[in-house]
């Protein structure tokens, strides 16, 4: 896996819109963004309504994922090209999610919706419909997903990477600052976690930094190549961004995303917390 296999430029995306075998997918929480204009021919996935179980805090199961992709008109052999707002946070989350269910060919548009808009590239309001397919997912690949017990057991032994902002890491604030700061969980971080904010891996326009810059970033912050790695944030979308950087761009092995993240960890009774 290397950058060219998993990341496409906005130029490439624009030149390849509508190409058979490619499905462009916008992933946002704010679906109004898609409705106000999207890449020509792109479909939308709502990270919450489409990708989260409606009752429990978990993913949709394999059968529901198959039903979703079938209804959206995505085939197993399509190349899925993801982009979205929030510096591709949710697109990276969807990338990780597609990989969890075994989709082979998935790519991100570098810079996502922000770079596309800042470049003044065209957006379409056309309704997009694709003929239904019969999608078959794999069993979830749990080698890329961490659960809470593994996180607690990893304190002091694995690379734990807290990708939230420094003020969330220190417990000064409990959520990214575009959200109200009223939460049940305690503030702070998992003991021995390094704070390497996701934003250090991205440029202001939302594109990823170069492989050389990224390698240097994790080196400088004390990333140990000989250890397995778990990344977390608040609900698992920013840590998907870092998971993408570590595993897909830098090719590091044994990297998991802890999607329970701080909302779960900071609410657990009896686990250690550092501030």
């Amino acid at each position: 896996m290397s950058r060219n296999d998993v990341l496409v430029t906005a130029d490439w995306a624009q030149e390849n819109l509508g190409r058979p075998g490619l499905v462009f997918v916008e992933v946002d929480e704010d679906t109004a963004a898609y409705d106000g204009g999207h890449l020509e021919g792109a479909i939308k996935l709502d990270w919450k309504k489409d990708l989260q179980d409606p009752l429990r805090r978990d993913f949709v199961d394999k059968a529901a994922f198959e039903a979703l992709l079938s209804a959206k008109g995505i085939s197993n052999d399509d190349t899925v090209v993801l982009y979205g707002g929030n510096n591709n946070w949710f697109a990276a989350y969807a990338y990780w999610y597609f990989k969890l269910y075994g989709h082979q060919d998935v790519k991100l548009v570098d810079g996502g919706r922000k770079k596309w808009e800042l470049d003044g590239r065209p957006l379409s309001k056309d309704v997009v419909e694709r003929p239904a397919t019969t999608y078959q997912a794999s069993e979830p690949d749990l080698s890329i997903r961490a659960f809470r017990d593994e996180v607690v057991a990893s304190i002091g032994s694995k690379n734990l990477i807290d990708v939230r902002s420094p003020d969330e890491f220190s417990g000064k604030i409990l959520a990214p600052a575009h959200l109200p700061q009223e939460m049940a969980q305690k503030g702070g971080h998992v003991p021995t976690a390094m704070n390497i904010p996701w934003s250090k891996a991205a440029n202001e326009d939302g594109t990823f930094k170069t492989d050389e810059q990224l390698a240097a970033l994790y080196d400088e912050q004390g990333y140990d190549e000989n250890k397995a790695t778990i990344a977390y944030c608040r609900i698992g979308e920013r840590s998907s961004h870092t998971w993408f950087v570590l595993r897909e761009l830098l090719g590091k092995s044994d990297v998991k995303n802890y999607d329970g993240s701080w909302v779960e960890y900071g609410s657990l009774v009896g686990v250690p917390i550092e501030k």
Partner: protein
Amino acid sequence: MCGAPKQGGGLAGVDLTTQTVIQGSVWHDGSPVAGAYVRLLDATDEFTAEVVTSPEGEFRFFAAPGQWTLRSLSPIGRAERTLAADVGLNETTLAIA
């Protein structure tokens, strides 16, 4: 949850005795700028959050008391402002030259 909520609108439901709200709008040439990307940077200049301005050019953050920098990005240009925020409502304007 982490997606950018709709910007602008009233402060009903926001407890200004506990929340540190930083809000305002982005302007250029006498008009509000819709669709600008406004990011909030902490006292060490590290990214904390980003929102897209409303049709009226508005943005809003829920921060904590202290020093913050606001920076807007848009196709027509950039603007930046540093401010000291306290608990309650902190209003400001970003003007793109």
